[in-house]
């Protein structure tokens, strides 16, 4: 029996609230278990590769050449964790609005905040832990117990991420308010991670080095920035220094919540009221809707709604960006076709634009805020759906055209392939959202495909096939280009509805 008001009791309360985010907590737990089992399965062949490398290196792996890559991954992960922790901190301190209740109770505010800070750590650590710890477990069994130090690394990243996130969060709320802080926090995290992940590739030898490196087991040539080597060394560090890092960061977090407890309480109390305050749209920013074509009417409406809710646009962009990171790490140093001048990274633009078109298409079609209003309008619903699809695509195609033109000026075929395949991907994903309108709350964009996983897979498959077609076209392989195009069109035909 846990004593009411004790630290474990408060922690249980925090974790219960975190779990209640899911409508069916048992399903979330089941999903975590399934993911853990699956990742343990994937970790087994990965551990064999480590052993093979160890044998090849005469019993001891020299991590030195791979340190920049590991360092880049660590900073990217750290950025994502900071982003996650900023979101959790904002929610726990400013959005949830339960601090008045807790602070009006006889429990010490310091205790409440300290528990809440460590609850943020536990919740923020979860995604990282699910992905990393299965590898640590399998490697510990197969290659040696020292790999269990990854547990400490994961905890260290989460605690340090929260230490950074809490003051950032309070500072942001003080200056720009809760709503904008939520958006900016995400941007900061993504930029932080992206900069370090892609930055880790700069100065790592000439383009094409990754192709060579992958043949040699990811051993990179060239000089990388010392910070990346040092960070990479942390990933493969011995447990003892890692434990030291963890203890120090935990102590800082504890002191932070203790020393600034009263300040947090005051800020949280004043800012929670401000959280509901919505900014005025200036008269200058006001738009005029009438006297325009139907697509124009909807383009104005959709883009004004998106522009006034930057978090939404960020959600649309961040998911494809994050999916592309692992591919971008490889593509950045690789080349396709004649390729001496342009990296393969641009092929990913096709994938990105397809995914973004899908997201925007969903917002316009399924995420409609006032569906009844539109159904009441004396306009054919088919025309409205078409107008919305055009509205979603209108800004994407010029962006694609400009990027393609810039590429075409360097390598003509490359630019043409990117434009044609990018447009194909965008149109395909937009069509998918026209055929399958599943009404949903646009504020829950991230969960839009919940229960509709088939559509998510179809969107990804269509974007992927068009990207593959672009890659093969640039590589001057006409037959290999035709196959993914035919597959994409076949998939579209199969999915066509209405």
């Amino acid at each position, binding site marked *: 029996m846990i004593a009411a008001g004790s630290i474990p009791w408060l922690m249980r309360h925090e974790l219960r609230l975190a779990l209640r985010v899911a409508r069916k907590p048992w399903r979330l737990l089941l999903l975590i278990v399934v993911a853990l089992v699956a990742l343990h399965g994937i970790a087994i062949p990965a551990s064999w590769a480590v052993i093979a490398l160890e044998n090849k290196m005469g019993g001891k792996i020299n991590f030195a050449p791979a340190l920049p890559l590991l360092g880049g991954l660590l900073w990217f992960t750290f950025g994502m964790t900071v982003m996650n922790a900023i979101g959790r901190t904002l929610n726990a301190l400013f959005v949830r609005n339960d601090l008045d209740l807790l602070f009006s109770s006889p429990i010490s505010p310091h205790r409440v905040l300290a528990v809440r800070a460590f609850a943020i750590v536990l919740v923020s650590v979860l995604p990282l832990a699910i992905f990393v710890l299965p590898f640590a477990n399998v490697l510990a069994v197969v290659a040696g117990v020292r790999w269990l130090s990854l547990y400490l690394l994961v905890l260290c990243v989460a605690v340090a991420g929260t230490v950074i996130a809490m003051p950032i969060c309070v500072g942001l709320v003080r200056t720009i308010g809760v709503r904008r802080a939520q958006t900016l926090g995400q941007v900061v995290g993504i930029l932080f991670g992206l900069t370090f992940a892609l930055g880790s590739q700069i100065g790592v030898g000439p383009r094409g080095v990754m192709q060579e490196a992958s043949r040699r087991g990811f051993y990179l040539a060239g000089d990388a920035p010392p910070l990346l080597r040092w960070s990479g060394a942390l990933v493969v560090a011995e447990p003892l220094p890692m434990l030291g890092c963890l203890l120090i960061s935990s102590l800082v977090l504890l002191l932070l919540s203790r020393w600034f407890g009263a300040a947090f309480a005051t800020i949280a109390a004043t800012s929670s009221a401000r959280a509901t305050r919505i900014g*005025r*749209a200036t008269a200058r920013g006001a738009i005029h809707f*009438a*006297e325009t074509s139907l697509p124009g009417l909807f383009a104005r409406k959709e883009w*004004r*709604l998106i522009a*006034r809710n930057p978090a939404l646009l960020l959600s649309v962009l961040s998911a494809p960006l994050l999916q592309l990171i692992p591919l971008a790490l490889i593509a950045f140093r690789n080349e396709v076709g004649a390729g001496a001048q342009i990296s393969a990274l641009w092929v990913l633009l096709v994938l990105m634009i397809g995914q973004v078109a899908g997201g925007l298409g969903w917002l316009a079609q399924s995420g409609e805020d006032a569906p*009844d209003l539109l*159904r*009441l309008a004396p306009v054919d619903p088919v025309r409205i759906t078409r107008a919305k699809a055009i509205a979603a695509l209108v800004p994407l195609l010029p962006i694609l055209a400009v990027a393609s033109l810039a590429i075409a000026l360097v390598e003509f075929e490359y630019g043409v392939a990117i434009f044609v395949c990018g447009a194909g991907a965008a149109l395909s994903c937009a069509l998918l959202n026209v055929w399958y309108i599943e009404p949903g709350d646009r504020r829950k964009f991230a969960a839009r495909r919940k229960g509709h996983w088939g559509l998510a897979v179809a969107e990804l498959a269509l974007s992927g096939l068009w990207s593959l077609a672009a890659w093969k076209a640039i590589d001057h392989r006409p037959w290999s280009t035709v196959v993914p195009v035919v597959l994409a069109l076949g998939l579209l035909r199969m999915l066509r509805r209405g």
Partner: protein
Amino acid sequence: MDRPEPYIEPAYALMLQQVGKSFDGKVAVRDLSLAIRPGEFYGLLGANGAGKTTSLRMTVGLLAPDRGSIEVFGIDALQRPSDAKQVLAWLPDEPMLYDQLTPLEYLEFVAGLWRIEAREAAARAGELLDRLDLWSQRDTRCAALSRGMKQKVSLAGALVHDPRLLILDEPLTGLDPAIQREVKDLLLARTDAGCTIILATHILDVAERLVDRIGILRGGELVAEGTLAELRTRTGRDDATLEDIFLALAVAPADA
């Protein structure tokens, strides 16, 4: 030279004949027939779950009836929904707003949906915002407005295209007395200008003061219809209030 045919005002603004709707085998509306004249202020009363909202949603084209016919100013609303929607407006109890648009932008957007020319739309929007005391909030996003203000913006959206038939579902719920008064005055002004209004409400006092005729629904069926005096006669009490009539007719003995 062909001369344009003179416009003949249809005898009824709204005509429902034998309209029925079921959900999963449960009857929500059973053989509902209504005939509402142009310019009439009609009150639709009924207990919770009596079928008021379902009937109104079918009338405005948001729900397809299982059977029956619906005519709006002589237009077959089931065959020619766009033409019927052109002349009607619907105000639900939950405002149909975009949180991130300002009231002015929202009204101009709604006007755009009804293909109203820009200058005309801006003028109407301004007039309605002024009339509903929302002008000072014209550049505030709807998300920041109070419940009452949102409802007023929603009402303005229903009126911006100058509908001939206005259908309101609990428009006064949750509004303070001052805003209720504003809304009532606006509605009466509309009927004076020839607009037909159908009002579904639980606020019997409002219905008693505003409406010309009352229809009472129970279990998806129209159990009584007429003026207040006619309904009093039916209950056999000349001094009966609408509340007495409602309790006698709309609430089944077992529910009372």
